[in-house]
């Protein structure tokens, strides 16, 4: 197999990898915020259920979750799952990553000293204003390094989509490695991941810098 064919096959896989990556980020980051708010809810049942959800998402392997999301509808309800593969992958990744993001957000929110809330109250901010104008900007700043960590992990976790026979880059690397009896595709995959993560780290650093509004 020529380099050209290998790189173009893997490049195609990379596009599929990126599709998982961006859609997961797009859905899981806002969903994580919702989960945090539910988790912090004063109503016991809501925070309890959210706790269980987070425990399951963090306590079981993502690969297992993907299989459950995809095959679940068939085994539970006998539903047809034709054409549902990609959606299942995005749902699986989103639900899993939302749980992690939620806990990162919570850590950030709870790190804000009570004095900030009190000061906001004195200044006449209502609860919503306090959260969005006072608390959130500080939270964003503290959680950035953890969020970067999580996003970089996501880039590498996309390879788990192979469990649902989604031909992302690593699955293709495996197939080429089998057909060529060679390790080269794995090394190429490593370079692809590294470059992607380098870009992620670079972008995140820029975002972090743009947030140094208090220093």
């Amino acid at each position, binding site marked *: *197999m*020529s380099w050209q*064919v*290998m790189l*173009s*096959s893997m490049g195609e896989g990379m596009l599929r990898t990126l599709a998982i990556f961006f859609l997961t980020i797009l859905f899981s980051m806002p969903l994580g915020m919702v989960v945090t708010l539910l988790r912090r809810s004063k109503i016991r049942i809501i925070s309890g259920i959210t706790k269980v959800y987070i425990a399951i998402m963090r306590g079981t392997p993502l690969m297992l979750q993907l*299989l459950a999301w995809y*095959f679940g509808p*068939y*085994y539970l309800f006998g539903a*047809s*799952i*034709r054409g549902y*593969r990609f959606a299942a992958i995005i749902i699986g990744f989103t639900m899993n990553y939302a749980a992690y993001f939620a806990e990162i957000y919570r850590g950030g929110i709870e790190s804000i000293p009570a004095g900030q809330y009190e000061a906001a109250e004195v200044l006449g901010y209502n609860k919503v204003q306090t959260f969005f104008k006072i608390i959130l900007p500080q939270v964003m700043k503290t959680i950035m390094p953890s969020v970067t960590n999580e996003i970089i992990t996501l880039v590498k976790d996309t390879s788990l989509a*192979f*469990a*649902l*026979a989604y*031909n992302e880059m690593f*699955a*293709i690397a*495996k*197939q*080429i*490695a*089998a*057909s*060529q*009896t*060679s*390790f080269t595709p794995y090394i190429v995959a490593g370079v692809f991941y590294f470059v992607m993560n380098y870009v992620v780290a670079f972008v995140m650093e820029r975002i972090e810098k743009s947030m140094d509004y208090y220093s």
Partner: protein
Amino acid sequence: MKKLISVILAAMMVVLLAACGGGSKGGDTQYLFLEEEMGTESYAIGFKKGNEELAKTVTGAVYALVKDGTYAKIGEKYPDIKDYLSLKAEDINDADIPAKGSGDPNFTFKHGFDLDYPPYSYLKDDGSVGGFDVELAQAVCEYMGWKYESVPFNWEAKDMELNAGSCDCIWSGFTKEGREDKYTWGCTYSNNVQGILVASDSGITTLADLAGKTVGVQIDTSAAEMLEDSKKELADTFGELKTYETYTVAFNDLKAGAIDAIAIDMTAGAYLISNEAK
């Protein structure tokens, strides 16, 4: 100090990578099968339990392709497996063959297979999906007048894919023995002989020589199952039986001298050897 450390680390990485690259021995080491084989099984087409009608039709269509020579012609393209093809035109009863083009033209035949299994189903040099099983399945669809759809799946999830209906069959170097009751079977079309692959300079010439040696096998393959089941006694003589995710990694371990032998389907093993010779 920091700089010094990073320079040293970088140098170590370069050396390691170079060592990986030049890892293969002298160059005149060859890889061959022991003359003594482990056992013979057969590859067949597996359908969802109870799907007799489709199994019968596909089998009939394969028979038709044996009769008209397509089966042998596809086999010619895959020299590593053509000696193992087991269907013979003279054994076939014409009554089993459906008429050409008699299939429902709106039916899409969803062929489920593993893309990591050369030369039966794999990614070819030009990046397209191919292999003996893929071409035969496509020929079946052409004969029946069906549409063909390839469904490459993850081997460990094959039963879930089949039961959930994302594919109509498992047809990818799929061993029938030991799974007779789990599926409704179409025809067997290829013998599958399990052998032991060793380096020519290893000194291993019989199965008995494997006593105390380290043997590699790919997870969930018929060779692996055989060593756990009917050939358990042989496996017990090994020093260690190592299970790999793919034969590619096992073969690299063999080349590097980390293991002494590989238990493998001979067709898949022949592919490894002929690829190595390239």
